[in-house]
Every structure is written in structure tokens, then in C-alpha cells.
């Protein structure tokens, strides 16, 4: 039953509206689309598997089964990280907020009388966190030495080391552990004057700090 073609001709007759705009695609709005995209086709199964990098060996034998009603077409490949969709997965905001609040941490700066709060989950990694801290306490610039990260107050040259208190109550240098582990264990952050930071847990010397 070719309801699809019948429908699309009716619809475009009615409004002249280009249905491709409203077609469901796993891509950010405005992303480029292949010219061969068929307005009413769901993504073919083979594309889904390929894009999701699932068991690649399955694509050929299975492509027939679930594509009876839709012909394979490239409706536009999704970006590597799928765009977040409103309300999906379907978890109530109440619940999301309750669980989310665990990743809010207070940020204190030695010598500054105020505290700020950041939500660690909104950052992808250390770079973004430090950039955000820099913006927040806008007098700092980030200076990177070899494997260390420091924030520097350009006015008086005081160096601050970003440190954090973990779940066990120990104060550690920010950047030592993989990002996700940091997010899970960080209770609060303190920008400590470098001079005071000497007593912290020793850094690992195998120090590649690529922590994404």
C-alpha cells in the first residue's frame, strides 16, 4: 500500500509546504541533508546500525526485514553525539532535578568573600571547567605549565591552583583523575593560593593530563 506517495502529493498540493522541513531526522536542525532524501521514509535500518556502530556484521541480512515499509535512504546522518531531544528519555523533571543536584559544587577562591556554584555535569572536561572558572572570577587567566593547570591573577601575579575536596574529605589537585571520576567524587572546589597548595596529595608522575 503506497500511502506514502499518495499522502505526500496531497500534502504538498494543499500547502506547497516542503515536508522535508518537518521530517523526522536524527540531526540538528539545519544540518545538511543528502539531496536524495525521501521525505516520508524512516531511516533505513542499515544506516541506523552503521551510525550507532553496533554489530556491523548484522547489517546485510537484516536490512530486508524491518525495511518492508520503508526504503533505505539516508535521511541525514546524526552527529557523533546525538542532539538532545526535549523530554527524552522520559524522566520527570522532578526526578532529574533531584538526581542532578548531586553535581552542584561550591567554588571558593582564597581571599574572595563570595562563593559560586557550578554544575559539573554541564562541562565536558577540565578545559571547559577551568574556562568557566576563569570567566566567573574574571580576573584570572589560565596558564598552563607542562602538566599543571594554574589560574593567575594578572593584577598581582598570584597563582591559584584549582583544588577540590573529594568524597573522602581529602583535598586534591584538579586534573589528576579522569574527568568522570572527578565529577563523581568532587564535593567542592577551592582555588587555593599556590603557596598553600604544597601539602596536597602528590601528583602522579605519569602525568598525562588528557582527561577527556
Amino acid at each position, binding site marked *: *500500500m503506497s*500511502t*506514502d506517495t499518495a*499522502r505526500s502529493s496531497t*500534502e504538498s498540493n*494543499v*500547502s506547497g*509546504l516542503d*515536508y522535508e*522541513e*518537518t*521530517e*523526522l531526522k*536524527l540531526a540538528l536542525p539545519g544540518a545538511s541533508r543528502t539531496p536524495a532524501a525521501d521525505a*516520508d521514509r*524512516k*531511516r533505513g*535500518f542499515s544506516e*541506523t*546500525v552503521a551510525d*550507532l556502530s*553496533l*554489530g556491523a556484521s*548484522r*547489517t546485510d541480512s*537484516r536490512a530486508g*526485514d*524491518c525495511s*518492508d*515499509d*520503508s526504503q533505505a535512504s539516508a535521511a541525514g546522518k546524526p552527529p557523533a*553525539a*546525538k542532539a*538532545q*531531544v*526535549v*523530554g*527524552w*528519555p*522520559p*524522566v*520527570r*523533571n*522532578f*526526578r*532529574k532535578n*533531584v*538526581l542532578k*543536584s*548531586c553535581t552542584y559544587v561550591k567554588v571558593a577562591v582564597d581571599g574572595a568573600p563570595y562563593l559560586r556554584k557550578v554544575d559539573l555535569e554541564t562541562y565536558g572536561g577540565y578545559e571547559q571547567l577551568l574556562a568557566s572558572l576563569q570567566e566567573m572570577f574574571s580576573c584570572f587567566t589560565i596558564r598552563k605549565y607542562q602538566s599543571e593547570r594554574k589560574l593567575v591573577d594578572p593584577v598581582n601575579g598570584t597563582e591559584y591552583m584549582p583544588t577540590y575536596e573529594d568524597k573522602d574529605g581529602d583535598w586534591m589537585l584538579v586534573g589528576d583523575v579522569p574527568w568522570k571520576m572527578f565529577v563523581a567524587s568532587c564535593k567542592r572546589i577551592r582555588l587555593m593560593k599556590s603557596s598553600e597548595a604544597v601539602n596536597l596529595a602528590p601528583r602522579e608522575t605519569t602525568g598525562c593530563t588528557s582527561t577527556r
Partner: protein
Amino acid sequence: MSDDEDDDHRRSIDLAAGDKPGGGVLSSDPPPPFSDQVLENVLENVLQFLTTRHDRNAASLVCRSWYHAEAQTRRELFIGNCYAVAPARAVVRFPRVRAVALKGKPRFADFGLLPLGWGARFAPWAVAFSSAYSWLEKLHLKRMTVADADLALISSSLPLFRELTLFCCDGFGTPGLAYVAENCRRLRVLDLIENDMEDDEDDEVVDWISRFPETHTCLESLVFDCVRCAVNFDALEALVARSPVLCRLRVNPHVTLGQLQRLMARAPQLTHLGTGSFRFGQVGGEQEVDLEPAFVTASRSLVCLSGFRGLTPEFLPAVLPACPNLTSLNFSYAEITAEQLRPIILHCHKLQNLWVLDTVGDEGLQAVAATCKDLRELRVFPFHAIEDSEGSVSDVGLVAISEGCKKLRSILYFCQRMTNAAVVSMSKNCPELVVFRLCIMGRHRPDHRTGEAMDDGFGAIVMNCKKLTRLAVSGLLTDKAFGYIGKYGKLVRTLSVAFAGDSDLGLRYVLEGCPKLQKLEIRDSPFGDLGLFSGIQHYYNMRFLWMSSCKLSLRGCREVAQRLPHLVVEVIRERCEEEENVEAVEKLYLYRSLAGPRSDAPPFVKIL
């Protein structure tokens, strides 16, 4: 709240058409002396034994005198959609109601799909009830916008009012609670569950707990875990101390372990306890608190335990003494691992309801399956509610549960990956399933072992679970899955669909095949006008249909609206969008109604 069917509205519509004010007998014979009145009295005495609304609806259709007798004796009023009938009409037909259950927004509002200000305000109902229902005792509201002023009105107008349950509501804050505490002298139940409460500014927070009467109260249930601001603890403790029949207490996370201990000492007879957080406060001295003795005492009566928001896992073993008697346990805000769960769950032989986070993993679920042989309801929520997270529960956990918990009736399961085999397994092992809600968080995700669509798994569920009334599907699904649902899902009342199906056929299978379908909510699926039309014979039997990000056109929706005059067809845009004559319909919400198009629709809602 139950999700039972509501009135058979189509029959109500027929009745409404013949409704005459005053309803007298039209026969030309002189009426026999007394017999009408006698009949009415007898009827009322008999009908009072009918309690369920289905029975009452059936009785009301027999004839006019039964209709009147039933209307006079109905004590509990259930309105599944606040826009299906006008408040004035409801109170005129049923003048002696003592309890009302009222539901507002469609469920997808919970996930941000309904713009703010859409409607479902309680205010017009508050006005109607406060003048017409002087004997009103109980009010259960779900997904309504309730203002502080509404609570003020209700609490001051209804002298017998004793039970207020607000579930997933919004629009009120501590001032509203203060009115209730202060004015409702006979209050027995104040249950505030998952409401989105107003964030009062610090200086506007009202100490509502202190407003309860200073004498002994008749409070049986006080649930306030969703109240964001801290309550006056001393006042709370004093309230609990002077509430001798209090058996359900769920506090908010501001209550510390030390404070919890004091509350438990004041109320050793609790059957339901919500611990709030389950961690120590900042105040010193709390480190010495040992809650285990409190739970030993509580174990004599405690059957339901919840809370644990932001818990310190090391102190979890304190609840062990209460475990053997627990029938209901909610760990769904507690980030615990299988290792932390196991020693607790090992003792929960009587458990019937369990809510957990997926941090417990498949191993945690295996531990549950090994012990909780009487489990009826399981909900596994995602800790990271995003599509591509690691995911710690999978088909392995589902199979384990199905093999261990054969009496399972209701399951809600969030996961990253699933297999058809696991779902088939559950369909065979758990024939008592009434509710099956599987959420594979990755959109369009197929069976991770075979690469196939999830059609066969869900097909097996509808085929083998003969009592199934509620179903939520996910993962990669073709029209075939909907074919199964239409063919076998003869008792399905609620169906939830997201990112599924291939064509209008899918929607047609369901609308033509499921005679009991009441609530259908669909998002991001390729169903268009033809699919929509296939439900025209059925929409009057349904409470509502929601379709968003599908392929509907204004013309198609208009046609449905024209053919079904008692249907309200709402086309909803985003708040900020300008009104243009866009043919594509982004959100459709249609529902049967005796009240016609509502007058309180905001500008972004177009009623066709």
C-alpha cells in the same frame, strides 16, 4: 493514583442530549400514587452499595429514575480530564459528592512537551466546590495548576475537609500549605507528591508546619518530600508528638539523620516512612547518631520505606531491622551499587514494590530476583537520563527479574540496550503483567544481539500477557509491532509510543484493533492524517489522544474536528512562536468533552 477507565463518555453524551431540566415523567397517564417516590427511595438505598464508577455509570443508564437516584447517591466523583466537563455541570448532576479526583494536563507535560500556561487550573473547580459541596471531604488532584488562593478558598469553605492529595501539581507554595494547615481542623491526610512547588524567596517562606492546631490532631498522613524549603523542625517534632494516629510520614531532604531519629522516637507506630535524605547534618554531634534501635522499634509496624535522597551509604545498614516486614521500598533517589543493595535486599522477603536506580546494575537486580519472590511492582530509573550513557542495566537484569519474580504485575524499566529474547522471556515468565513499560533510552535502538527491531519482543508481551492494560514501547519498532498490539492487545487502555513505526498503518492497527484504548500518547513517530482518520470511530471512547512531532497537518486535524463535534481538538505551538498559518501540526491534543472548546485557552493553543 489509579489509572482506571473513566466514565463511558459517549453514553454520557447521549444522555446529555436527552437531558431536560427538571426531568419529569412525560406519560399522559396519571401517575400512580406514591410509587415514584417509593421507587426512588428504594433505589437510593440499593444504589448506595454500588461503589465503583463503572457500576454506577451502568446503573445511571437504565432509565431516568435510576439516573436520578444514582446521581443523588454518588459520593465519589472521578473526572479524568478536567476539560471534559464544566464544573457547574458536574456539581449540578452530582450534588452530594464527598470525594473528588480530578486530573488535568496530559502526561507528556511531565517531560516538558506542554508549554507553560497551557491550562488545567484548579481555580474554577475550587469556586464550584466551595459553594456546592459543603460536605466535601477529600480532594485528589493530579497535574493541575493549584494556586495558593485556591487552597485558601477550599480550606476555609469546607468544614468537613480532611484529605488533600496533590500529585504532580504546580502553582502553589508554602503560603497555600499554611492555609490548609490552619483552616482544616479535621485534616487527616496531607500528601504532597512530586509537585513542582514555587520557589519562595527566603523572606516569603511561610512556616506552615506551625499553623497546625495546637491540640491533638487527627493527622494520619503527612507527606511533604517535595517541599523545597526546610520546615521548622521543632514545630514538626511537636506536631508529630501530638498526632497520635499518624502512620505515614515522609519528610523532605532538609531533615537530617539526627532529626529523623527524634521524629521516629515521637512516632514509633509509623507504617510508612520517608527519610528525606539519610545523611548527617552539618551540626556537630550527629556523628554519634545510631538509627538502628529506631528501626528495630519501627519494624513492628513499618511496611513502606522511602526517601534516601543524597544518602550516606555507610549508614544504610541501620534500616536492616525493618527489612523483613517491608512490602514497599523506594531507593529510586539513592545512588547505590549492587554491593550496597545486596545486604539490604537479602532480608526483604516480603517486598512487593521496589523502586531503584539503575546504579544497582544487573547484579543488583539478580539479588532482587533471588529474594523478592513476592514482587509485584518494579521500577528501575536511570541515574544518567541521557541516551548514550554507559548504562548498567540491560536484558540480563530483565531476564533475572522475570525468572525470579513470577508474580510481577507492573514494571517500568529504563535501559540502554535490550534484546527481544529477554522481553519474550518476561512475557512467558510473568503472565500476571498488567503494566509493561520499557524505555530503551537510545532512540531507534534495535536488539543489541541480533540487530533486529524490537517488534517480536513487544509482540510477545501483548500475546502472552493476557491481562495487560498499560504498555509503553521503545527501541527500533516497525509497523509490525503495532500490528501485534492491534491484534492481541485487546485489553490495552494506555499506550505510550515514542520514535517508533514506519507509516500510518502502525497507527491504524492500534486505533482499529484496540477496543479498550483510552489514552494514547505518541511522539516523534511518522504517523500522519490518514492514521489520524482511522481513529474517528473510536475517539469518543477515549479520554485523549496526544501526538507531537508526527506528520499531521492542520487540514487533517480540522477534518477530525468537523466530523466529531464533541471532540475538542487542540493544536499547540511553542509559546514564543508567532501565529502563522503553518500547515504542519507540531502538537495535537484531542479529547472528548461535554463542555465544548474551553474559554481559558492561551494564545499558543488553537482549538479547531
